[in-house]
C-alpha cells in the first residue's frame, strides 16, 4: 500500500490539462502508462534522476483504473486531490453542484473515523 504513490498520481494528473483528459477518456491505459513512465520520476529533477522502488498494489491500480473515488478515499488517498481531479473530469457532465453532491452521497455509508491520510 502506498498512499504516497496514489497521491502522486492524482497530483501529477490534476496539474496537467492533457493528462486530465487522457485519464477521463482512457483510465486503464493512462494508469498503466503513468506507472511505467511517471511513478518513479523525481518531480523536482530536470534530468532523469528516477527513483527505483515505487509501484502500485493491485488494489490501488484497480481503484485508479475504475475511477473509484470511494475506494481511493477508503485507502487513505488525500481527499482534496481526489475531489479536485474528479471535479475536473466529471463536473462538466452534470448540472450545477450535482456532481459534487452525488460524489458525497455515494460515500454516505462511511463513518468517522475516516481512514488516515498520513503519508
Amino acid at each position, binding site marked *: 500500500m502506498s498512499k504516497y504513490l496514489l497521491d502522486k498520481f492524482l497530483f501529477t494528473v*490534476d496539474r496537467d490539462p492533457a493528462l486530465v483528459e487522457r485519464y477521463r477518456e482512457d483510465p486503464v491505459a493512462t494508469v498503466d502508462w503513468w506507472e511505467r513512465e511517471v511513478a518513479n520520476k523525481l518531480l523536482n529533477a530536470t534530468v532523469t534522476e528516477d527513483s527505483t522502488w515505487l509501484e502500485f498494489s493491485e488494489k490501488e491500480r484497480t481503484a485508479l483504473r475504475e475511477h473509484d473515488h470511494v475506494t481511493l478515499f477508503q485507502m487513505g488517498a488525500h481527499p482534496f486531490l481526489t475531489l479536485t481531479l474528479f471535479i475536473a473530469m466529471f463536473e462538466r457532465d452534470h448540472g450545477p453542484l450535482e456532481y459534487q453532491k452525488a460524489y458525497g452521497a455515494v460515500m454516505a455509508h462511511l463513518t468517522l473515523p*475516516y481512514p488516515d491520510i498520513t503519508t
Partner: protein
Amino acid sequence: MAEVVAVIASTHHPFYLRASTSTGADRPPFADEWVSKIETFRETLTKARPDVLVMVGSDHFHQLWLDNMPQFLVGKAPYFDANWYNEEREFGLPKMRLQGQEDLSAHILRHGLDADFDLAFSNELRIDHSITCPIITLRPEADLPIVPIYTNIFAPPLPQPKRFVQLGRTIRQLVESWPENLRVAIIGTGHLSLELGGPRQFGEHGPDPEFDRLAVEWIANGDIEKCLGEVTLESLHLPGNATHGFMDFMLMMGVAGEGVRADHVDSLDLFHTMEAYFTWYPNGAPA
C-alpha cells in the same frame, strides 16, 4: 519601528470572485449579501492605511509537495506570481502578480529562526488561493507588497495547534521589531468546519454548525486558552475532514493576542461552509 495597524482573519472561499461577478440567472441568490459583507470587511483594512501586508495561508498541493514538505515557510522574493491552472479551471481565478517585501521577509526569517521557529523559505513561490482570495476580497487593487507565510494544515503529520498560536505571537513580535516606519497589516485565512472529498461535503451548511458557532465565539473574544483546551489534532477530524485549516485562525488569534476582542466580527452561513471575518486594531480603531 513598524506598526501593526490591523490584524485580519478570514475564511478563503475560492468561489467569491465568480459569485460576486456573475449576473442574471448565473448569479446565486446569496451573492448580494455576500458582496455587501465583503465590502464592509474590506473597509476595515482600507481604513487602517497599510503599506505592507503579511499574508498567512496554506498551499493546497500546488508548489509544496509530499517529496519535500515544510511545516512553516516564508516567501522571500521580489515578486510572487499567483494562482494555478487548476484554480483557474475550477474557480475561475485569474493569474496575478504581487510585489514582495523582501526586507521584511528576511527580517522574519532571521529573527524567527532565532526565536526557535525553524522556518523554511522559498525564493520563487507561486502563491495560491489561500492568499489571493483575501487579496481579491480585501485589497482587489493588489497594489501592496506582501510577505507570504505558508503553514501546513493539509498534509499530515501536522504541527500541534499550540504551535500555530505560538507562531502567530512570534509573527506579531517580529513585525513590531522591524526597524522600518511602515504600517503593516497581518492577514491570515483558514477555515471553520469543512469537508472536502468526503460524505459530508457540499451540504446545506458547513458540516458542523455547532463547531462554527463556538469557533466564531473563540476568535471574536480572543479566547485562546479555551480554544486550545478544546481543539486538538484529533478533535479537528470531527467537524469535517478539512477542518485542520482552523489552525490558521488559531495562528491569527495568536497574532491578535489573548483576550483581545475583535473590532469587527461578521459571518455568513453558506452552503458547504460558513464564512467568517474578523478585524482587530491593535492601536485602536482608525477614525
